[in-house]
């Protein structure tokens, strides 16, 4: 009787051990994306040792100029990238000055390599460096590799109706009281000229990157983001905000 119970206990304990072994902790950067998410046409070499993630952030939001490159160079030294990449010539890690790019050589490719890390030794810097720092590093790495400046991505086509609706929201709302958009009736000089607002890297006097989300937050409640700003909060309905954002994004 007793020995039968004991064997039951052994089986139960064994099952529990197996269950405990199945428990896995998440390693940042180790997630495997479903293959359906792959984007064709990225600048990826044929060598693909690990799963690639689609490149989401396609454009360096910082100015691609000497200042950015110089800041990237300082970061490159501060984070001891040379420890593995030997000033770009390659040692433990791959060379950065040749034309072999396992994970692609666009600024966005390099950005994500830095943030996520790559199999075989490249650590993940996600959470350790800011997005801006990663873009600066990417700009520097591209500069030592003598890569040409990246072309602006082709604008994704947005239905003209959405842009038109957004223009109406702008011109019929309070925006015209302060802003200029050349070619429209909006010609006030109180606030910034928004004729090419979509080409700007930042908004709110350089405090926010110019993304759809930041623009939304800025329009809806600017006082909270920049104390003392002259811009008043604008209360919009959902559809009007969406259209307005789409319109502003069309102002290249």
């Amino acid at each position, binding site marked *: 009787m007793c020995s039968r119970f004991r064997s039951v206990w052994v089986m139960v304990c064994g099952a529990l051990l197996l269950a405990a072994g199945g428990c*896995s902790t*998440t390693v*940042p950067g180790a*997630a495997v994306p479903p293959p359906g998410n792959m984007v064709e046409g990225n600048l990826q070499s044929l060598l693909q040792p690990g799963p690639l993630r689609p490149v*989401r952030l396609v454009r360096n939001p910082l100015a691609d100029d000497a200042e950015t490159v110089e800041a990237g160079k300082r970061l490159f030294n501060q984070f001891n990238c040379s420890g593995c990449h030997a000033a770009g010539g390659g040692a433990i890690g791959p060379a950065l000055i040749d034309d072999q790019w396992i994970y692609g050589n666009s600024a966005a490719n390099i950005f994500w390599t830095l943030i*996520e890390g790559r199999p075989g030794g490249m650590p993940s810097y996600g*959470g350790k460096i800011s997005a801006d720092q990663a873009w600066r590093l990417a700009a520097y790495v591209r500069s030592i590799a003598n890569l040409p400046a990246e072309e602006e991505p082709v604008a994704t086509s947005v239905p003209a109706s959405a842009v038109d609706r957004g223009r109406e929201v702008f011109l019929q709302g309070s925006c015209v009281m302060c802003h200029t958009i050349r070619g429209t009736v909006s010609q006030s000089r109180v606030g910034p000229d928004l004729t090419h607002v979509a080409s700007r890297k930042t908004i709110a006097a350089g405090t926010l990157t110019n993304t759809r989300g930041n623009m939304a937050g800025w329009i809806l409640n600017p006082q*909270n983001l920049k104390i003392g700003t002259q811009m008043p909060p604008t209360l919009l309905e*959902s559809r009007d905000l969406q259209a307005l954002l789409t319109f502003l994004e069309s102002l290249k």
Partner: protein
Amino acid sequence: MWKTPIVFVASLLPILTGCSGPRSVIAGGVPETGRTLITWYGCGSCHELPGVRGATGQVGPPLRRIARRAYITGSVPNTPANLIRWIREPQSVDERTIMPDMGISMQDGRDIAAYLYTLD
């Protein structure tokens, strides 16, 4: 005779409960990447987000402890699928919401949701 197996099972308990350490509850979502994306998309312009620098927005609700909430958006249960759908296509959950559709991809949605679920 009975003591041995009981002690053995008791000694396993810490191993089993060790599963509840910090981990993503979103399959295929990486919290650290999500944090970077949250900065990029500008979620913090509207929401307060612990652990994200500059995320002090006062347009939408603060997202501290969102992992513990029963409902999100005031209308749907707080499940991974609902949260990701809300992040990616808010108007598909509530057409009147002011939260903008930012064209967030499925993978980005997973990563962002994974970060939000670390806030508990």
